């Protein structure tokens, strides 16, 4: 679960007001308070630490610039999550657009002629099959394989500990949509992870 909040709600509200007035030290305290939660979320969404850092930074910068528009209709933390979520989804979509598509059977062409594609074997080596590291990698991969809408809800609920209501606000979707996406995400994740467990590729630590 995400780190427990250290500042009280009224502390956060006071810091938001001071930040709105241009007090960057106050904003620095807000960054300190939320950086790990937002980074953890973005990192799970993107599975790339460098991109996660950039996106998290951008989320805070945008939050600062948009503070004049923040009227407190939602809590500061859901508002911040929402900015981060939009940015993370943008990155996911850009990745999709820039990923080249090609047939695995089609040979590669080069100046020296054609040659077969060499696809790295994603099966884990016997030595590392049961290691914690490999298990975690497999879980991360399974999360990444979820469509982004399901992934978002899954991470926010299961790993960030957000409530259904907060997630609905963060993603701007009805409560029922949050629940159905979570249901589908769990089912899909169960399907892909249990295949690996049954194949003996990963272990469940009891």
């Amino acid at each position, binding site marked *: 679960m995400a780190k427990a909040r250290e500042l009280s709600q009224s502390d956060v509200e006071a810091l938001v007001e001071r930040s709105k007035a241009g007090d960057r030290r106050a904003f620095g305290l807000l960054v300190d308070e939320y950086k790990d939660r937002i*980074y953890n979320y973005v990192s799970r969404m993107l599975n790339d630490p460098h991109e996660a850092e950039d996106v998290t930074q951008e989320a805070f910068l945008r939050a600062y610039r948009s503070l004049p528009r923040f009227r407190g209709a939602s809590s500061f933390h859901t508002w911040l999550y929402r900015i981060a979520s939009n940015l993370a989804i943008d990155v996911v979509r850009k990745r999709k657009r820039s990923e080249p598509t090609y047939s695995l059977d089609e040979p590669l062409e080069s100046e020296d002629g054609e040659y077969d594609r060499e696809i790295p074997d994603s099966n884990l080596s016997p030595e590392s099959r049961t290691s914690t590291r490999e298990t975690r990698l497999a879980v991360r991969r399974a999360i990444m394989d979820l469509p982004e809408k399901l992934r978002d809800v899954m991470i926010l609920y299961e790993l960030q500990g957000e409530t259904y209501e907060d997630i609905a606000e963060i993603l701007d979707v009805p409560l029922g949509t949050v629940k159905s996406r979570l*249901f589908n995400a769990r089912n899909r994740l169960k399907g892909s992870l249990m295949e690996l467990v049954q194949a003996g590729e990963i272990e469940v630590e009891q």
Partner: protein
Amino acid sequence: MTCEKVQSELVTCWGSTEQLSVTVAEHLDGCETCRAEALMLQRTRLLLTSLPEEEAPDGFTASVLERLEQEGPARSWLESIGNLVIPVRQPQWARVATVGLVLALAVAGGAMWMGQSNQLPDEAQLATTVPVPSQTLMENAELEELLRRHQTFEVTQPLADDMGVGLVMYTSY
């Protein structure tokens, strides 16, 4: 109760058998398939929650503040209005340029109107442009008031919510 319904409830409670209704619990006692399903869900949950927390890199806050510092000191009034008019996704120059353009158009419009104020406008003009009072000559105070209202920006509530696009109504009279 059908296996399908039981398995659906199991997904909702992540395979936990503690929160299940008596009917579902009874079904599980006699159904090996659904018991296996519950176990798989519990294992999936365990795997998921075994992921460690990831923390922002050292010096994260300092670099955010540094980037804010590089962006310059406090917001100018033009930028503040720009933030309200243009979605924050747009670069700062675009927000400032847009507000500047709107203001320039407002001033130009006002100047043109003043230049034409001694001519009687036709009905089409009256419908689409600044309505002109029937008198061709106005008191200075009236003119000042009209110009003031002509250049007023009405900043309304955001369209959707705090993340929504700010809407600026340009009022013309």
